[in-house]
């Protein structure tokens, strides 16, 4: 019945390779957040705009990003666009899919934060001679990021975990991809994936810790 003998040595020997994979995972997550946050701010502004030409596409983006599986979004970036002759490598497709997902969720987070900032703040800025854009950038955006900071951190953790979906589009260099390859060669399934799981856990915890520290340093008010 229970015939599986654990061989942790073999798994630990693969650790350096897995750490390299973890680095790729982090890279994709960080990139997808940086681009995602930027797009999310634009989407949030567009969703509050008067023009339906801005509002509509932004709303559609948010709806799809939040109401379809992330796996589907990554698939579409790779195979979906592929059928239109636009070929994205697994790395780019994974990055695009997660960025799409991040932007959709963060847009709503930022929109909520924007609503919490009284219009009188912008008024005060305009009265001092600031233009619309300057007042938004200097007065609204910093306050928005503060309010949205914790939800944004959660999305970052999500982004890290979502990278594991990359294997479905042939991603082989991130933590899950590397683990999958090792597994195919050694069949130490449990040990390898347990180790990968532990690494994901540590990364997620480390990110949360770093975020707390950053919040404490940044938001003194």
């Amino acid at each position, binding site marked *: 019945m229970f015939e599986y003998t654990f061989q942790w040595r073999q798994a630990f020997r693969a650790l350096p390779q897995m750490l390299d994979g973890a680095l790729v995972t982090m890279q994709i997550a960080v990139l997808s957040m940086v681009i995602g946050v930027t797009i999310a701010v634009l989407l949030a502004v567009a969703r509050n705009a008067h023009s339906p030409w801005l509002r509509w596409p932004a709303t559609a983006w948010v709806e799809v990003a939040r109401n379809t599986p992330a796996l589907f979004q990554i698939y579409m970036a790779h195979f979906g666009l592929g059928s239109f002759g636009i070929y994205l490598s697994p790395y780019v497709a994974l990055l695009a899919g997660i960025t799409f997902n991040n932007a959709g969720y963060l847009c709503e987070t930022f929109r909520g934060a924007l609503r919490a900032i009284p219009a*009188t703040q912008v*008024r005060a800025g305009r*009265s001092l*001679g600031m233009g619309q854009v300057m007042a938004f950038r200097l007065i609204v955006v910093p306050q928005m990021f503060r309010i949205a900071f914790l939800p944004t951190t959660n999305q970052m953790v999500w982004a890290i975990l979502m990278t594991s979906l990359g294997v479905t589009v042939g991603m082989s260099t991130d933590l899950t991809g590397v683990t999958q390859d090792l597994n195919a060669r050694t069949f130490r399934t449990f040990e390898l994936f347990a180790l990968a799981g532990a690494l994901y856990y540590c990364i997620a915890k480390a990110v949360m810790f770093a975020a707390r520290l950053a919040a404490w340093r940044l938001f003194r*008010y």
Partner: protein
Amino acid sequence: MIEIENVHKSFGALEVLKGINLTVDKGEVVSVIGGSGSGKSTLLTCINGLEPINSGRILVDGIEVHAKTTDLNKLRRKIGIVFQQFNAFPHLTVLENVTLAPRKVKGLSRQEAEEIAVKHLTHVGLAEKLNVYPGRLSGGQQQRMAIARALAMSPDYMLFDEVTSALDPQLVGEVLDTLKMLADEGMTMICVTHEMSFARDVSNRVAFFHKGVMAEIGPPEQIFGNAQHEETRKFLSSVR
């Protein structure tokens, strides 16, 4: 000089200003009194172009505020405005609150802006609070910071909209003293206020607003001693 000529202003179907005429000379202090909803705040936000008007015109130093060709961002550097809600920028320290616009709008260096800011903050009695965030200040301190913030742009005119109304009674005095000081220094000011003793003691002229009309204007002795208009007398007896 601020010249307000036959200004009409509506919010939708509601006409809030019904033909206002008022000229404020350099160095003059005009207090605006009147009941709630009479259009006092609206007039101030029209003067610095935060609100559009429907007809008439407003000139500040001969520049028409609502003309399409007017650069409002530039014009607003001349006109400081302080609101009832203090509108401190909560993410910036007191010093940063005051230096932000001089640096980003006027392009002053950090050092120049800080020199000016410290001067004005000292003037309003906040020299000890430079590196504090507004959340740690009392209402009166926040309002004095807002005044310093407006002054740091070196405006030629200051508009005050009930700057003491949101304050606890014991904090009103310190803010009014700041306004008096400014008046004594020759600042041109329009003060919307519910503080009748302030209006009487500090202003050159007092304007009484009633339902979107400037029902009466004159020196404080006239308004408070010998009001010509029935509504003025009614209003004054209701606030005393």
